């Protein structure tokens, strides 16, 4: 017995030594960078990504994908100056002719030429490794092990070989359907399947602000509310596990309860997505001035969520437009790299707004490997003629998108910094920039994510507008 105990002890020591010695290139790069900057936020981030659970999860996802972001970055021939620590301002941007190849043109314009919604300073930080949850990993692995290949039918629905909806089936609902997408539709579905990344999400609060007025912009719209999101199937992390009762046909739902300003306080909306292409969203709103619930049309997702803000329903959680090959063309138009806001919001803010909250004093960006997904409206009737999305090659979520109107003018962009939680692979949101380049309106969303007690806080009440009306 004594001998066995000794062996166990030796094994434990050996195992912990191995684990503590585990690392990855992103962590190494960050350690080095944090040591150089001396920034306590950076040090905290290093602490977070150094945790064994984070390292293990990163490693497992890397094995599944066959790469991580650092592998792709290191394999790419990059400009010599494109390194962590480089600071770019309007004054020196011209010194880096390669910058236009890595920054979206809208970001570049905000840095160099716009007189509204400007970005004062960009600092490049090391490339992170982003991944999803253990549940998503396990589901995806099983998919591959069992050689289950999802199909996309003529309606654009994502189906399992047994005919079930991929995102409703408990076995597949959390999986990435196409680890290595071969075309635009496959990439679209991997992006859609990512959804909110996690199973339950709670912003308390979400702040939505809008500015107009060019160089002298002032915040002229401001809302606060609480926002919830839930995936209804394949749940493994947050109660209820498995399927959420009563949501047999629904993939996921989001809801919002506005708390400010006073004249719309109590306005609550619940929007839930059916898996079937034939069913528009279940969209219900409680209108305080009527004290009544109204069913709204799920097909009009092109209106702003609230007056004066640039966030339209089809853009909430970045991409909510329902897949429809009759109306849209989905093209994988390329791959490459983009400089985008890091998802470090779980630990610190990678952005700083000016005092008026109408421009960015500074942002951090990191180099991300991406696919380029172009969604083209075939009807000529949709608000966006094109939606160009840079989809991250590690987590299948977007890093940036640009939309154009039917006259090919750049209309809106979406740039976000999420609150990625390295130990679980979950991600909520911290900051979104959603600005309109036609009306030159700078809009932001700022969110404080709730992580604890989500199993209690995100329940049926939040997805039944007749209950949500009495939330506060």
């Amino acid at each position, binding site marked *: 017995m004594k001998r066995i105990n000794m062996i166990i002890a030796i094994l434990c020591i050996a195992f912990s030594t191995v684990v503590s010695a585990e690392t990855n290139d992103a962590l190494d790069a960050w350690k080095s960078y944090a040591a150089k900057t001396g920034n306590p936020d950076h040090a905290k981030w290093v602490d977070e990504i150094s945790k064994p659970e984070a390292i293990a999860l990163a490693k497992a996802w890397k094995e599944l994908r066959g790469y991580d972001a650092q592998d792709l970055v290191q394999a790419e021939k990059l400009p010599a100056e494109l390194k962590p620590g480089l600071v770019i301002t309007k004054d020196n941007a011209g010194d880096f002719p390669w910058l236009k190849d890595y920054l979206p043109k809208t970001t570049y314009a905000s840095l160099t030429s716009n007189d509204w919604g400007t970005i004062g300073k960009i600092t490049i930080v090391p490339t992170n490794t982003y991944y999803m949850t253990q549940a998503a990993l396990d589901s995806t692995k099983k998919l591959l092990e069992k050689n289950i290949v999802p199909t996309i039918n003529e309606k654009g629905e994502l189906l399992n070989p047994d005919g079930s909806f991929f995102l409703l089936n408990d076995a597949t609902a959390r999986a990435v359907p196409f680890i290595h997408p071969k075309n635009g539709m496959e990439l679209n579905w991997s992006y859609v399947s990512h959804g909110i990344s996690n199973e339950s999400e709670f912003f308390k609060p979400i702040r939505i*602000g*809008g500015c*107009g007025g060019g160089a002298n912009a*002032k*915040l*002229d*719209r*401001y809302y606060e509310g609480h926002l919830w999101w839930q995936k209804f199937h394949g749940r493994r992390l947050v109660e209820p596990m498995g399927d959420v*009762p*009563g949501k047999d046909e629904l993939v996921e739902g989001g809801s919002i309860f506005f*708390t*400010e*300003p*006073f*004249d719309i*306080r109590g306005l609550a909306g619940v929007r839930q997505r059916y898996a079937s292409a*034939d*069913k*528009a969203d279940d*969209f*219900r709103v409680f209108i*305080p*001035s*009527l*004290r*009544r619930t*109204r*069913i*709204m*049309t*799920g*097909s*009009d997702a*092109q*209106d*702003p969520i609230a*007056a*004066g803000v640039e966030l339209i329903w089809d853009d909430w959680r970045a991409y909510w437009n329902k897949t429809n090959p009759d*109306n849209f063309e989905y093209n994988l138009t390329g791959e490459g790299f983009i400089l985008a806001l890091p998802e470090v919001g779980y630990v610190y803010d990678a952005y700083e707004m000016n005092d008026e909250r109408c421009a960015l004093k500074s942002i951090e960006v990191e180099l991300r490997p991406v696919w380029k997904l172009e969604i083209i409206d075939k*009807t000529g*009737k*949709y*608000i966006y003629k094109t939606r160009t999305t840079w989809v991250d090659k590690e987590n299948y979520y977007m890093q940036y998108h640009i939309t154009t*109107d*039917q*006259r090919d003018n750049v209309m809106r962009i979406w740039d976000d910094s999420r609150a990625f939680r390295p130990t679980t692979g979950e991600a909520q949101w911290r900051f979104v920039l959603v600005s309109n380049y*036609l*009306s030159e*309106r700078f809009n932001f969303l700022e969110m404080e994510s709730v992580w604890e007690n989500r199993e*209690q*806080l995100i*329940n*049926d*009440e939040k997805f*039944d507008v*007749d*209950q949500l009306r*009495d*939330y*506060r």
Partner: protein
Amino acid sequence: MKNRRILLGLVIIVMTYDVSAASDINTFSGWKGENWSLHGRLKQGVSVLYDLPDNDNVLGPSNTTAELKFSYRPNNSWTFITNAWYRADLSPSLGDDFDTGQGLQDPTSAGFNGRLPYRLNEHSCLGTIGDPFCADLDQIRRFDDLDEVLRELSIKYRDPKSRYTIKAGKFQRGWGQSDGLRLLDILHAQDLRERFAFRDSDELRIPAWMVSADLNFERMGIAAPFKALGMRRPTLEFNFVPEVHHSQFIINNPTPSSLTAGGAFGLPFPALKDPVSGYGLVGIGANLQEKTPDDFGFRDAEFSMRLRFDALGGEFTLNGFYGMQDLPLVEFTGANVVAGSALNNESLAAAVVPLDLANAIGAIHAPGGYLGWLRSVASGNPIPFPLSDGGIAPLAALSGGELPNCIDPVFGASTPADLPCSVNANFNLDYDHRQKVIGFSFARDMVELEIGRKLVTPTLRLEVAYELDKPFNRSVAADPFVPGATVSGSNSLVIGPSAAYTDSDVLSTMIGFDYALWVPGWDLQKKSIFTSFQFFNIHTFDADEGLLQQAPYGFETVAKNQQYATFLWNMPVINERLIFEGLFIRDFDNSGTFYRQRIDFQFFGNNFRPRLEWMTFSGEGQNAPIGILDHSDLIEFSLTYQF
């Protein structure tokens, strides 16, 4: 006039307020903590009435609203909400008096069909035929009873497993799919004193002390039978309301002994007319009292239930309501003979001689009574006035010889001691009747109908309510003295309740469509125009028996099928900072038209909300709800400071 200048000055100050300062969003937004918040608003309006008969433009309702809302949610199971508001109207203090033109019948007019003046916002009048009636507007000056101030004081408990919730306290709940006209939204009485029914519905409902329970059958594990019937996500709402309110309204009653005035939105005192002779019921006033159910208790408590479920691609509700009527029947209880005042003023009378119900009916309807006299005058062969010497019940006889007789309006005084006389009929506004309604509503996104520039689908709304045995005052009733004959119009109110009341089942139906309109050719349109169309049909099964719309102010008869249409549009422009909202209502059967235009200016940050509002009514005088407000057209500017 001075007051008007002050108000104009205030408006100019507000309109020229430094926009750049006001539009700073980083202003005060209430108090809040992790689990609680306190917000509120202060609103002041000022309006001009521009369509009053025989008046220049006058200051209209100038409402003040101060509101606070506190909420506390200590955990996921409990929520406490308190909401209080204070409402007032500055117009009684600042405005000039104006004449409604709706006093009692004018004895000097042809056929007595003219109306004497009735000046509002004036507490002293001459009491002569030229200036007979006036009233101040104290009844709308402030709404500050505790019951009026407290809008919500509630506590809600949620089962952690989401099986049920219970909410108790004072609050309101809205039912149904209809806007404007209430079919199923009947859980609460309405406060009609400020803008009648033409304001936001949450401000109209009178909250009540009540208990509501919502049961989630899915979570309770008893949804299977419902699912077998195709009813998904079934939930049951049950409401118990031990406190009974009736709707609040103010009649502009010129009768001096029952003087009430609600200003421009006070309901008109009806024209009193004998349909047989065509003559006005001259000399008749009305004393109005309320007869209400128990304020609080089980005997008159209200119960309601709603089963909500998804089916056929939409949401259904099945509703049942067992409550009390919000609006009254008019019950004739007797009359007062006002001896010594021809203008119905009991306080100036030499004596007031009460007549009980039987005597009052007799004095009016019996041969030789008031109606007989009126018709004889109309025919040109007058008989003696019933209360005069030679009438069937001379005043001297009624008063046991203590009083002389009334002066005969046609033949004059028989003795110098004879007195001018008038009669005030005594009525109860009788709310003590049950209301029994069943119905259903259905709302559905019509996904099959993608139309318009952006292929948007309309939303269908359907609501049906069936009220059993709805009580009505008759517009045609049995003549109490002539078997087989009938009395009608105003005369049918001055009979005993057993003959004056009847009931009928009523089937009310609404079909409506909401549609987000993207205007063809308007490429830069940033937000859709919300449009909402509704059509109502209210079928009263026994309408052909002769029913009054709503005594005592809606004096027209009920049509078999009463039809309305409404159209609402809401168009935000300039980054949704300038918002136009229009509401059109058409009453087809009574040729009534209402239009309200609101313009909201959201250029001033989150604290300030200026609004322009224009309301215009066009309809025939005694038709509810539009015709009765024919002269209440107004333009209002209001400014809300909110935090």
